[in-house]
């Protein structure tokens, strides 16, 4: 296992922008399609942390794993306990006029990343998202 990057961020839009830039650099060894899939999933979780967690800080670790070759993103924050895997999926068949704005981010994470695990550990939310490389 190789750690491609590991940083701590402030729970602000500036912190989010910095994490996005760092992740893009860390994922340079990864194919374009897989990099974009990871960037999307990460953005969904970044946004949740910055907007809703009330965390003092949050961290992102990017790991490259062998057998199977995959990328793992480990996100932690010291905010309010929140298990995204325990949320109910939104109704994706609703008509446009009835659709709530938003609520799709966690669904995207669940459908594109595997495995996804959550735990509350030492006062922090720890979310791990994997993506197999082709």
């Amino acid at each position, binding site marked *: 296992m190789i750690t491609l990057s590991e940083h701590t961020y402030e729970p602000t*839009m500036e912190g*989010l*922008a910095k994490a*996005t830039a760092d992740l893009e650099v860390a994922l340079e060894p990864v194919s*374009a*399609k897989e990099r*974009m*899939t990871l*960037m*999307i999933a990460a*953005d*969904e979780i*970044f*946004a949740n942390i*910055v907007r809703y967690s009330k965390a003092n800080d949050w961290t992102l670790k990017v790991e490259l794993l062998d057998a199977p070759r995959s990328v793992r993103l480990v996100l932690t924050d010291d905010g309010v306990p929140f298990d995204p895997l325990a949320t109910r999926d939104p109704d*994706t*068949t*609703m*008509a*446009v*006029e009835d*659709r709530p*704005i*938003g609520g*799709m*981010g966690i*669904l*995207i994470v669940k*459908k*594109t990343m595997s495995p996804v695990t959550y735990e509350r550990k030492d006062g922090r939310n720890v979310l791990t998202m994997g993506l197999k490389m082709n």
Partner: protein
Amino acid sequence: MEITNKLEDGKTVLSVVGRVDTTTAPELDSTLQGLTGSETLIMDLSGVPYMSSAGLRSLLTAQKKMMAGGGSMTVVGIQPVVKEVLDITGFSGILTLG
């Protein structure tokens, strides 16, 4: 992100270049806020490699505005990763894709 607004044969063509995510979507939102809702809007996403749900929120807001204002919105130039996100969330079925 770069957004170009062009009037072409009576249609408003918004061309977006760059990723649409939490960082960049506010810029798209502010451009969309400048629309009246009565336009025939062509949203050209051929320069958008990927979009997170922040971008979907922008598209849904625009779609609702166009419906309310009597205009229309057609989304064209959808790249594969954007299409995947539209399919997962059911947005392929609620947007007019060209």
